């Protein structure tokens, strides 16, 4: 018997006796005999903890992680430092083995943390309210569009900048495919969305306008002007942000956003090959009854004591069923907790200093890399911690060579933007040192020098 089943043969006998069944098998009598599975599942035999640990170590050793090479990868997941306190709190099993706080009296810990998370997200973005979190940044964009459909009642176009994370755009196309609206991508050949193109594209049936800043190339968008163009025709302006950037950059509220969504990975969440992450969704007060997912609100108990509960549940699937604002059932509770602890640990000064270090190091890295002959900034636009270079030769081959030298040097922009096949998108966080940046620049220079090129590419 496995360590996770406690019934001894004596227990089983006593339990069956009480039930009035002759065997465990009899308990499955309602499954028609011919539908019973006749063999054992074809999966590998059981492993002890020692064997499992060894097996998993073997698998882990087949990976080259961001700690095995210096990480300049971004594209929606960034190598920010995670203070130890985040891991310590998140690994308390009173947090991670609890579930959705349906029984408020026995879940005040979870509920208060979510309420604090909602407040922190509002403070961070300047927006009025936040929900209890969504799956991750990508589907959060789609949930924001579903909100916009509900708010406007329109059936026209959803306009999204080509510079928004390509995967977020793919998700959006999937999500609205069977609904009454269409997605139009506004081209960004210069690495940013020209607000004039937005003003030209919108009309009084436009559902929403979506732009991301910093965008996928790392560059800053003219969010305020884009937002004004959207709001002028009564479309919902959806602002996609990077929470870490808000230590320095103007907030979604400053941009005039109606709904602001973002990927929360940078707030204390390890890479983990892409998840679990954290979808942050915030909006103006007037849209609160259109918000998807869980919301925690303050109230009082029978003794007048302040406390917290899940609230406005009539929006949700378990009450409203097919008329719900979303089908979402879970929030990312444990990861909202991580973000709350992380932001609290950093505080306003720590977040600002983190953002400043990102800016300084990224600009230093861009400068050093652009000193390499043939390398240049691809777009002449301001950036935060990520930027896109133009390289003189095949980016994919170069990346393989740089990896052999110990660098995850960046993302090949052309993988998502075939028109930018010469592009390399590089992310630099507060963790990168001068030595690592100089090392990368040196390695790029070495690999791009003519002699090596003919030998290796």
């Amino acid at each position, binding site marked *: 018997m*496995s360590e*996770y*089943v406690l*019934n001894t043969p004596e227990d089983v006998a006593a339990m069956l006796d009480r039930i009035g069944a002759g065997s*465990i098998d009899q308990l499955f009598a*309602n*499954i028609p005999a011919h*539908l019973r*599975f006749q063999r054992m*599942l074809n999966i590998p*035999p*059981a*492993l002890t*903890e020692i064997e*499992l*640990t060894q097996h*998993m170590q073997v*698998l882990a050793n087949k990976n*080259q992680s961001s700690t095995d090479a210096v990480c300049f990868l971004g594209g*929606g997941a960034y190598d920010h430092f995670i203070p130890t*306190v985040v891991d310590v709190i998140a690994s308390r*099993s*009173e947090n991670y*083995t609890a579930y959705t706080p*349906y029984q408020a*009296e026995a*879940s*005040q*810990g979870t509920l208060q943390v979510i309420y604090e998370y909602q407040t922190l997200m509002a*403070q961070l973005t300047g927006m*009025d309210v936040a929900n209890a979190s969504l799956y991750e940044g990508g*589907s959060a964009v789609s949930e924001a569009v579903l909100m916009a459909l509900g708010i406007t009642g329109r059936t026209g176009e959803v306009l999204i900048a080509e510079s928004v994370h390509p995967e977020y755009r*793919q998700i959006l196309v*999937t999500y609205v*495919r069977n609904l009454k609206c269409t997605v139009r991508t506004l081209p960004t050949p210069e690495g940013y969305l020209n607000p004039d193109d937005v003003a030209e594209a919108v009309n009084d049936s436009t559902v929403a306008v979506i732009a991301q800043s910093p965008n996928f190339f790392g560059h800053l968008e003219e969010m305020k002007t884009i937002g004004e163009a959207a709001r002028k025709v009564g479309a919902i302006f959806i602002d996609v942000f990077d929470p870490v950037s808000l230590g*320095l950059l*103007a907030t979604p509220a*400053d941009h005039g956003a109606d709904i602001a969504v973002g990927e929360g990975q940078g707030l204390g969440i390890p*890479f983990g*090959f892409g*998840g679990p*992450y954290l979808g942050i969704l915030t909006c103006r007060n007037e849209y609160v009854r259109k918000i998807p997912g869980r*919301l925690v609100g303050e109230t009082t*108990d*029978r003794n007048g*004591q302040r406390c917290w*509960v899940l609230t406005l*549940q*009539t929006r949700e*699937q378990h009450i409203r*069923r097919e008329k719900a604002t979303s089908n979402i059932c879970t929030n*990312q509770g444990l990861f909202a907790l991580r973000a709350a602890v992380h*932001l*609290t640990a*950093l*505080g306003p*000064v720590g977040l600002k200093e983190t953002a400043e*270090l990102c*800016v300084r190091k990224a600009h230093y890295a861009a400068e050093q890399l652009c000193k390499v002959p043939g390398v240049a900034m691809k777009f002449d636009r301001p950036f935060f911690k990520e930027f896109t270079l133009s390289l003189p030769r095949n980016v994919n081959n170069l990346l393989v060579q740089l990896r052999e030298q110990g660098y*995850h040097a960046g993302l090949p922009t052309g993988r998502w933007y075939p028109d930018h096949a010469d592009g390399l998108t590089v992310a630099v966080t507060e963790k990168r040192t001068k030595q690592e940046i100089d090392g990368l620049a040196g390695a790029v220079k070495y690999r791009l020098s003519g002699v090596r090129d003919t030998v290796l590419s």
Partner: protein
Amino acid sequence: MNNTQSTGLIFELSKSGRRCHRLPKCDVPNSARIDQMIPKEYLAKQVLPLPEIGEIDLIRHFTNLSARNMSIDTNFYPLGSCTMKYNPKRHERIAAFPGFANLHPLQDDDTIQGMLELLHSMQEYLAEISGLPAVSLQPAAGAQGELTALFVAAAYFRDKGETHRRKVLVPDSAHGTNPASAALAGFDTITIKSGANGLVDLDDLKSKLGADTAVFMITNPNTLGLFETQIQEITELLHAQGALVYLDGANMNAILGITRPGDFGADMQHYNVHKTFTGPHGGGGPGSGPIAVRDYLAKYLPAPIVVKEGDRFRLNYNMPQSIGRVRSFFGTIGILFRGYCYIRTLGPDGLKQVSEHAVLNANYLRARVSEGYEVPHAGPCMHEFVASARKLLREKKVRAMDVCKRLLDYGFHAPTVYFPMVVSEALMFEPTETESKETLDAFAEVMLKIANEDPEVLRTAPHTHIISRPDEVKAAKEPVLRWTKA
């Protein structure tokens, strides 16, 4: 012990100048001002109003708050339909190996061969357990798995030129996510009645089934904890109409290695890896909702899928008929990862034993609880059962919720309450296989004791928690969803 130290709102503990994290000095040349790198119009005008907290206050705050939760590790948590089984600790340590935790989601395939091997195996295990050969691990939770499968169905019918199939049939006992997902996928939802025996009413199904039916979403075992004995007849009816059958896999914990959805006629299903394969529920999430489908639906699955070529694993994005993406990057890896560890720990015998003992424990608890409560549907049940507190309501004006609140006083988490809606005063118990007979007996004794307690004590319960019952009406009427400075 209710420790109230540092448990005010974190914002109320804030004091200017305190901090818990310091940053290193900038080691690159930094004589330039920030606004020389980023023009002023892009920069914030003011410092963010975030709290300023010292380290010990932060730790005490979040530690003492955590103690205000019931959790699997502290209390029996028989929350029906949620499969609150023990979460093995070994998974936590292994998940933290740098070779897994520090993998960036967009690394080159050559650098993530171990991760891809694991995910490829997971695809195969989930296919084998369901009897449905093609698996996508991408959906982030059960509800998103449902939605993804309905997108697949929509694409399938579009390709067949059968866009007139507008209807998705859903039993009245189904999870609320089913109709909500159907609406999001652009379908109209039609509700199918349950019969007095708690199973799908076949006549009602037949009367609503037609050439415009796209999908029947069925939960089996259903939310009453009953196996749909007519499942084969149901799936044959649907297939005869050219429609697809979707299995809501929330209750897979009852049938691992016992019967397979693909074998009883389901064409698509989702898994809740966080339930069946013990991903920690995290106070509400993350979940993980992979789907398995028949081979002719494989081409519609979200890309990428992990494929094996010789000894090498690769993410295959080249799926021209794919519905697209539903989530960024690959999926909820952390939960899939723990599910993999769990399946490998148990093996084929261990997995079957999970379902056998989950069903044994549920039937035992059902027998014990029925000593004092009505259990409206005939047994045996599967991994969970639904009792009703309507006798208490009739005789003592005590509601099912009062019973739940009183259970909290005795140190047990409450069952799921008022669901499914087809049973009045419903109490839905799912003990799971990881509980002992002693725990089940102790819980049953308390249930029976509560049935005989002073009604006023029950109506005012709980009495031993940090708060008494919250005013939910007030919370919804004038929502206060964030703290603001007084």
